[in-house]
């Protein structure tokens, strides 16, 4: 259960979101114009940005979670896989998702390796295990990002524009994957892709005038597009 209370956030002294009171349903698609604060709102949940007000996760203030605890609750899947260490392999990258579970100074344990192998298989990318991240195509990279989120074994997964850089074939593949995850995880999808929203069949919220509100399920596509004006 995720809840925002009297939440406000500004960026470069410019107010982006103001006094949001919102409870996130089990699955949510988050829409809004570019720069409306969708990612900012979700990054607040992961303590990546500063905000005013409160964000609660299971009735506990997220600020009271320590970094490792929070990771075990929420995973954040960015749009693009961007890492500096260009020589890290897919397997090593997925193992990093187990950092929050790892004992200090020691290696990852067998369970971690097993989970990595399992999730690679689940997403049909087992053959990529030893590949370097820098050598992946954007479709493969998207799958690796999802595999990383699964490996973290968190209840909630946030997808930040998961289909933004993908061709139609990969868009379909990623959409299917996200839809399948609905049965095992709480998912929050930030997107501009209205087809994806319809396909996932989940509740939709829209950010407008610095506020966030749920959309009626019967809203037509034209009405939705009109909201962006």
């Amino acid at each position, binding site marked *: 259960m995720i809840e925002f209370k009297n939440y406000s956030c500004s960026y470069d002294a410019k107010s982006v979101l103001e006094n949001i009171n919102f409870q996130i349903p089990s699955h949510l698609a988050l829409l809004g114009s570019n720069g409306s604060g969708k990612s900012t709102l979700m990054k607040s949940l*992961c*303590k*990546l940005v500063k905000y005013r007000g409160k964000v609660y996760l299971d009735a506990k203030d997220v600020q009271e979670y320590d*970094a*490792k605890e*929070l*990771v*075990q609750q929420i*995973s*954040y899947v*960015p749009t693009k896989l*961007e*890492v*500096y*260490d260009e*020589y*890290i*392999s897919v397997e*090593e*990258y997925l193992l*990093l*998702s187990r*950092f*929050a579970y*790892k004992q200090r*100074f020691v290696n*990852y344990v067998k369970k971690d390796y097993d989970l990595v192998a399992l999730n690679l298989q689940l997403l049909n990318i087992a053959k990529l295990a030893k590949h*370097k991240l820098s050598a992946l195509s954007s479709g493969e990279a998207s799958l690796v990002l999802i595999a990383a989120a699964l490996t*973290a074994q968190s209840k909630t997964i946030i997808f930040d524009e998961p289909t933004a850089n993908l061709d139609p074939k990969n868009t379909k593949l990623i959409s299917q994957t996200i839809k399948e995850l609905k049965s095992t995880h709480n998912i929050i999808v930030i997107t501009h892709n209205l087809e994806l929203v319809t396909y996932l069949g989940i509740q939709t919220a829209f950010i407008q005038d610095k506020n966030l509100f749920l959309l009626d399920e019967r809203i037509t596509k034209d009405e939705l597009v009109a909201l962006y004006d």
Partner: protein
Amino acid sequence: MTKLLIWLSLSIILLASPFLGAVSLNFQEIFTQGSLHAQIFYDVRLPRVVFAFCAGVILSLSGLLFQTLFRNALMTPYTLGISSGAVLGAGIAIKLELLGVFFGLSIVSIFGFFGAIFTVFLLLYLAQFLKRAHNTSLLLLGIALSLFYSSALMIVFYLGSAIQNDMLLRFTMGSLSIIGWSHPLSLSIITLILFLTLYGFRYELQLLGTSDDEAKLRGLDTKKTTLLLLLVSSFAIGALVSISGPIGFIGLIVPHIVAKLYPVSVKERIGKTALFGGAFLVLCDTLTRVIQTQSELPIGIVTALIGGPFFIYLIISKSSR
């Protein structure tokens, strides 16, 4: 195969280095107690090789660390002005003739040390005011600091006596010529601490090498970890530079070569970078002793002569991508 050859030649240089120099040593003589050759071997050459090796390890590991922490191939304690801070600190101590010893550490070293640590904190403080694209800006801050420190050092020169200035000038050129075992021993301990810290934090380093957000999203307290690693490394750099003076570009060159030889994640490169860096500086130092000019070439000048062009190459190759 190339790797094997490289490591083999570096090992040979390590073994041969103590025998090379102004006086070529005879292998049998060094086992004769009290002979001149034995004295040169045990009291001059061996400690110097150990010292050079440790210096190489500290410089390359710090380079690898800074590049990973700031995710930029051009970041080293040298390019960020931390070495210059240490030089200025040591320079001020020389000017003030604070040549005593305090708790086993020379006051010049302590000043050098604080120069390095002060610079780290100054950089971290200033970095807060930088916006998102803070990496390049941070590098520019470091370069600005270096320039400022050089000017401040000029003032110290201007005010100094001829004897002080000669001492200072030699110090700023960087030198590994030490005699006896006290410096090599203390530096080996510091080197070991640095290595063990980096090795102990290898998983954290691997995380930090992805991106700051990724590291936080995987549950790492990036601020605390970065600060701790920076402090340990600056401590080692401060201790080294206050004895040897600045030795530039090793931290830039060695991690780059090792990454080209071993395209593996940073976690797997810590030990290799340390070994390669140590042997590489011993090689450079042996060169300064073998190439005889009027007196031996200062090591800092040799590494800067190799490193300057390499720095330019790195900037061009990174920006063309």
